[in-house]
């Protein structure tokens, strides 16, 4: 059943049995919860629910906003990650901390901050953002882009310095080296960052609800839909949306792990 990495690990040792047991309990717990969700509905019910106009609309809003977030996160995040990975400057630690802050802070707090900045007397109050799609995108970007930046930065940092130096001595400018060496070598880190950012944006609830409210057909994303339908007693609709999210997340992760394993340029 187990394939050992090292010959000195024994399958019949007490420790081996212990860790296998703990892993089994953990796996069973997660699987059971997901199974409960899966068995809550039938395929026919699921399809009927998904086909309702309000739910379709929330799916489209979620897809649109999360894809926009990924694109914006790439445009801003890659340069920021590269800067942090390759330059030493004063204030670097502060910038670094600031970027990680949304990962740690509660999304509600992030949402409130955006609400204040863009609402009433805020610094950006002349942008019409509150209760709009733009608001959703800003809220999701704020919360989700740090994942891409972190992941890309670690990928850039782990490239062997001599390889980059070699590129320079071979006549490549820093920009050429960035495009032809750094980016390809950081590819896996960037892709995993994209997936984490996208998943975080799709699953975003607190900050989005705070900034964009829960207006059906206008600012109702899938997660907001799950919450609203569950509150209003339409549990079937919530379950359908949840299943959709979980299955797509599962599929994405599997595809990524497969790609990551077989296309690793280093191995």
């Amino acid at each position, binding site marked *: 059943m187990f394939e050992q990495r090292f010959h000195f690990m024994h399958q019949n040792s007490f420790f081996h049995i212990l860790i296998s047991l703990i892993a089994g309990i953990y796996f069973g717990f997660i699987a059971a919860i997901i199974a409960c969700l899966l068995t809550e509905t039938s395929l026919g019910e699921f399809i009927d629910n998904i086909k309702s106009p309000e739910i379709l609309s929330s799916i489209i809003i979620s897809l649109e906003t999360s894809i926009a977030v990924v694109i914006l996160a790439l445009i801003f995040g890659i340069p920021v990650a590269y800067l942090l990975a390759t330059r030493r400057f004063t204030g670097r630690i502060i910038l670094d901390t600031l970027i990680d802050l949304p990962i740690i802070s509660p999304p509600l707090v992030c949402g409130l901050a955006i609400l204040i900045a863009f609402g009433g007397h805020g610094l950006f109050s002349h942008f019409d953002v509150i209760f709009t799609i733009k608001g959703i995108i800003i809220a999701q970007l704020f919360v989700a882009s740090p994942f891409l930046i972190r992941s890309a930065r670690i990928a850039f940092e782990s490239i062997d310095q001599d390889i980059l130096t070699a590129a320079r001595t*071979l006549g490549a400018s820093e920009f050429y080296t960035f495009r032809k060496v750094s980016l390809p070598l950081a590819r896996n880190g960037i892709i995993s960052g994209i997936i984490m950012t996208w998943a975080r944006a799709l699953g975003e609830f607190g900050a989005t609800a705070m900034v964009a409210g829960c207006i059906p057909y206008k600012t109702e994303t899938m997660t907001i839909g799950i919450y609203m339908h569950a509150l209003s007693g339409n549990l079937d609709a919530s379950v359908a949306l949840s299943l959709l999210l979980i299955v797509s997340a599962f599929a994405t992760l599997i595809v990524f792990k497969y790609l990551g394993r077989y296309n690793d340029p280093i191995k």
Partner: protein
Amino acid sequence: MIQLNDICKSFKETEVLRSLNLNVKKGEMFVLLGSSGCGKTTTLSIIAGLIREDRGDIYVDGSRINDVPPHKRGIGFVFQNYALFPHLNVYENVEFSLKARHKQKNNRNEVKRALELVGLDGFDNKNPMKLSGGEQQRVALARALVTEPECILMDEPLSNLDAMVRERLRYEMKQLQKDVGLTTIYVTHDQVEAMMLGDRIAVLNNGQTEEVGTPEKIFYKPQREFVARFIGMKNIFNGKITTLDEEGGVMQISTENFELTTVLIPSGEGTHVKACVRPEEIILMKSDQKTSARNEIAGRIITIFPNGPLMRVLVDVGGDEISVDITRLATRDLELKKGDKVILKFKATSVHVIM
């Protein structure tokens, strides 16, 4: 061709280069020899523009290149760990600098020629990470040579290879360098490598060039005590010239514990000098036998231990120690052991004098 004037470089508190001067001629293989941490890599990095010098000037063909960025210097660099691009195959690795310099046309021929030059034709589509160390270093060499650079810098390119491959590649590299007439600065801490490869050698010490010269000069007639010690002249003694025999062409040097006869060099009586004798130039015998050697010192064996393929015998000569290298067989035939009385003999021409 390449000239370094008064280069200084410090990292934080540590002064690595203190007023380093070098002058490399066109087409020569110039070896930088020095112990670990003496600033060899730093020197190459400054020439290539990868590190900025604190002070001093760098000239290539008479023009100052201090402010030229690394990718415009046209100086090739070969790294100790090869630094190949893992996401590109062998062909693409070699092609990289042609593309980076926007020389799109005729790439195919140039890449092929470079790969042939290093004996890697047919390796085009291989993944460089799956090649042996020697093959990887050949790829790195082809990659650096493909644009036919003015000169090439090599930082201990063979030190990660096993002895057999290293020897072969060293020979091939020397041939290639001569054939192409490539100006090369080669960094190593390996004396044998320096000796075999260098047209000239610079020994670095303390962030400066201690001495520059042909291998012959550096290894047999060093002018500096540091260099003499570095290249393994074990026996170095302070002394004073006592008599000059112009007719015989010899002179006498008196050290604290013994007298030496050496070949006459232009100097005056009373001059303080250092006399050096290589351990392998000394003949060791148990009983006095007639030889033509002019120098003869009696002593007692302190210890005997293996030193590579030879045996090293440490002999006490009235307070000083003299190292003698003899073959394993000779130690056995002479039945040498600790405490034995022995006589050391060597020729006047075997004594090298440093003023």
